[in-house]
């Protein structure tokens, strides 16, 4: 899923200060799971902003809506009839949701309420970790199911480097050396002979280096 983290309330108060009618727009997908932008967080943020405004003598109308997703036209259409009632929308979906909402409703400012971090997994409640950088050319089949693009600080394809010590990366004692993990996993799988094969130079044009990307699937387009 896409992992996001809450923005500090001070920052949100500052960016929404001039809005008299504000819609807080949540998303039922990834940001709900990482407890940053779901229905619960919409309610908490709306209550806090209402109290803050009242306390400062400002009169504001703050409404709460949480859509199934903000990255699909059909769900975003659900607010078409109400969007005119607001001076601004505070979207607490990921950056994709914020942008898609802004693209759809050109006349209304759409602000981000979370910081979108990465694609990751829930290691345990309250701990989300990066697992994929969407490089566009998955090589997990040859690395024991552990991704050196997202988990190695240097994105090495023939690791480890000299900075690997006691299974940790030189950038921090808390970061596992991805290549140590890969070797350990290959040992467990009995495929260590594959480790000896050199990986060819990666074509990074499918990563961000090739500019904004898109997937075109004519077989499913109507």
């Amino acid at each position: 899923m896409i992992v996001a983290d809450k923005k500090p309330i001070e920052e949100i108060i500052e960016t929404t200060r001039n809005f008299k009618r504000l819609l807080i727009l949540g998303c039922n997908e990834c940001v709900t799971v990482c407890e940053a932008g779901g229905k619960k967080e919409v309610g908490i943020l709306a209550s806090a902003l209402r109290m803050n405004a009242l306390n400062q003598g400002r009169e504001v109308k703050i409404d709460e809506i949480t859509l199934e997703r903000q990255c699909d036209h059909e769900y975003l259409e659900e607010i078409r009839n109400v969007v005119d009632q607001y001076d601004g929308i505070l979207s607490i979906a990921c950056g994709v949701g914020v942008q898609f909402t802004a693209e759809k409703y050109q006349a209304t400012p759409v602000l981000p309420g979370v910081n979108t971090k990465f694609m990751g997994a829930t290691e345990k409640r309250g701990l989300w970790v990066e697992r994929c950088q969407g490089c566009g050319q998955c090589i997990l089949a040859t690395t024991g199911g552990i991704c050196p693009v997202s988990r190695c600080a240097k994105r090495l394809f023939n690791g480890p480097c000299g900075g690997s010590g006691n299974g940790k990366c030189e950038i921090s004692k808390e970061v596992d050396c991805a290549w140590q993990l890969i070797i350990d996993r290959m040992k467990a799988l009995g495929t260590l002979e594959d480790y000896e094969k050199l990986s060819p130079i990666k074509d990074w044009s499918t990563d961000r280096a090739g500019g904004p990307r898109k997937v075109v699937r004519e077989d499913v387009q109507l």
Partner: protein
Amino acid sequence: MRLNYPTNVKIIRVPCTGKVDTIHILRAFEKGADGVCVIGCMEGDCHYNSGNFRARKRVEQASHLLEQIGIGGERVKMFNLSSGEGPRFAQYAVEMTERVTALGPNPIKLARKRAAA
């Protein structure tokens, strides 16, 4: 036992403090409560294992948020006792009332009055 505790304490019963969410605490302040205390079972004694730990985290979240929006984080507090400790309940009610009285009224209540005037 016939213990007395301050009459301005209003009780909202929940099956477990794990039911109390951050939004419930915030709504209480939005509606004008001067303080909120969440009283749960002793830590380690939760019938549902972790209900009171969840409540403690949510109280901390609410407290942090209330501090940042100028209502005051000290207006919310979590206490623990066992179900047989009536005198301790009364003691916590007195303690919370004294704490909130010292802090004064909820600024939201005052702001609403000003807005209505």
